[in-house]
């Protein structure tokens, strides 16, 4: 190989790649508005992005898969947890993650910041990014969804318990979390209607409860869960 050929390889290689890259950059700019729903990108979302950066969220969490890998990806967090779920984590992480082996700092966000962050995460959750991440994809059934559906055929209430991830805090048959009472214990002491009321608004039934409200469930679903939990008790100690 002569030096002339070597120089040609250098210039052709560089310029071809650069051309492809710049043409694609123009194409990307033209597509961004539609793919990211830029019409919904208002000042509240921008304030949320500022808050997101001010509190350095991205050096623990990934978003769009970028950032640090210490905490869950936030791309679809809004869709995954719902507005209440995200709000609770932002406002009182020390309560939500009290039993977790990994904590989130309490950053004392102002109510405006929380609202802005919610607006930001809501907007992000709608970015069309070829259905990533897979675990939050509505087009792919995760293994846990499959398990839930299999359970739903036998007991719709058990499927709801799984869907709402009750066992993150309560235990059942020795499995699950320990921050709430055992489901068998509840079942032996309460009736279905009480449990349904409690699920709807824990604070109203028992002041200072650490349990989040499950307003997303219907009246009937809450009652079904209540009946399921009552059915778990081997012996009723309370009439």
């Amino acid at each position, binding site marked *: 190989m002569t030096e002339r050929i070597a120089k040609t390889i250098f*210039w052709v290689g560089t310029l071809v790649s*650069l051309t492809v890259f710049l043409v694609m950059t123009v194409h*990307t700019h033209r597509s961004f508005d539609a793919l990211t729903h*830029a019409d919904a990108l208002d000042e509240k979302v921008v304030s949320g992005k500022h808050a997101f950066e001010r509190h350095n969220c991205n*050096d*623990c969490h990934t978003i769009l898969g970028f950032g640090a890998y*210490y905490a869950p990806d936030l791309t679809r967090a809004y869709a995954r947890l719902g507005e209440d779920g995200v709000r609770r984590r932002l406002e009182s992480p020390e309560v939500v993650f009290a039993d977790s082996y990994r904590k989130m700092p309490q950053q004392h966000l102002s109510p405006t910041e929380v609202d802005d962050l919610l607006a930001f995460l809501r907007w992000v959750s709608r970015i069309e990014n070829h259905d990533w991440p*897979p675990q939050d994809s509505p087009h792919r059934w995760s293994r846990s969804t499959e398990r839930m559906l299999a359970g739903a055929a036998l007991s719709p209430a058990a499927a709801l318990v799984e869907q709402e991830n009750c066992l993150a805090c309560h235990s059942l048959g020795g499995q699950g979390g320990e921050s709430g009472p055992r489901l068998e214990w509840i079942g032996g002491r309460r009736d279905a209607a009480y449990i349904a009321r409690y699920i709807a608004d824990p604070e109203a039934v028992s002041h200072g409860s650490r349990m989040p409200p499950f307003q997303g469930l219907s009246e009937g679903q809450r009652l079904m869960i209540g009946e399921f939990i009552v059915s778990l008790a081997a012996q009723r100690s309370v009439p």
Partner: protein
Amino acid sequence: MTYKSQRVAYPYFVFALLLFGLQVVVGLWVGLQYVITVPQAVVDVFPFATSRAMHTNLLVLWMLLGFMGATFYLVPEEAECELAWPKLAIAQLVILLLTGVTALVGFLFGWTRGRPLLEIPTVLAFVVVVAALMFLANVGVTLFRARRWNAVQGSLLGGLVFLAAMYLFGMPFYRNLSMDWFYWWWVIHLWVEGAWELIAAAMAAFMLLKLTGVDRKVVEKWLYVELGLFLFTGIAGTGHHYYWLGAPKAWLWIGGIFSALEPFPILLMLWDTWRSVRERHGRLEPALTWLYLGGMAVLHFMGAGLFGFAHTLPQINYYTHGSQVTVSHGHLAFFGAYALLNLGFFYLAVPRLKGFREGRYDERLGRWGFWLMTLGVLGMSLAFAVAGVLQTYLERIRGEPYMVAQQPMRFWMLVVVLHGLIVVAGVVVTVVHLLTLRPEPAETERAEAGELVPARAGMGS
């Protein structure tokens, strides 16, 4: 050392090494937070995010200081004249160090721009730009005055201008998160797979020329080909970061195809090093400097080439994106490509700056440093990879919740931290060795110690 102004390189090397030490120590704490449960009270004041920002910014700072020092060492010798303004070079170092210290202390108090790797606040970013302009002016004026252009200088200056220009794309506030990340990669990807590769190729070519005495024409010819392939695959290869950020689908094709070719220029670099070794004049001495060159060529290929290729195709990346698989690749690639390059260059330059005969030095302690660091980082990257595969399977494929998937990964993060201890030990040994480098013991002394290496000893220790 032939030119007096090359001396300014030394303080750059010293501070680069000290910051490197600090980086790996902070890294231990970063890793430990995956293993143990840090109490809420500690998390509230010193969260993971802060330590991670420190770990990554220290990396960027020490490597840039290393590159700058290497440039100040290399340019006078290649241009065959003194540096234009040696005092400006020292002023620039002071500015960068003050900026770095301010940024690190600022992170502790939550003064951050909150953009990974580019956390330093905008005010400080402007100071960095000023320092970069001082640097480019110094190097540029020296080279233009000398007018002895060759491929090594061209690659170096091109890489440095490219590096500085790309930094600007990380400075504005972008309203749209997708566009934000699009341009974030113009900084990060086009640095490590563009500008930094140009600088690295120039530094490696310079080292080969100094150490082997092979024909400059041959080295420069292959340098053109390497650079051509690096830029051909690297520029459009940026697309492998654009799969899932809300950009058009065509990036899946372009990113996939161009980045699949990325191992080739690195392989060529490996072969180029090997060829120079075979065609050298004289013995492979000093053996430790060669160990660094060889180690760099091999681990650069493994970390950047193989580990990078393993998850660059969109079909795989869909599941591995943003997992510990990325971390595994990142650690091995940065260490193999740029840490070993910088350290190898220090081992070439420091003995010459200190005026040791033929650039020889007492290598004994340094070998321990090299092997501890290298094996430590290799083990660490493999442990990250196991954790990453677990995460990919449990979280991405089985759809387990994030924290459920993290639980079995904790053991492997412990393995990471244990290897981290080995890395820290290796870095401490290497830093101490480089900062207290002594001339080679006399031949009789070496023979007594049973250390006299026969002429045909290979590149291993």
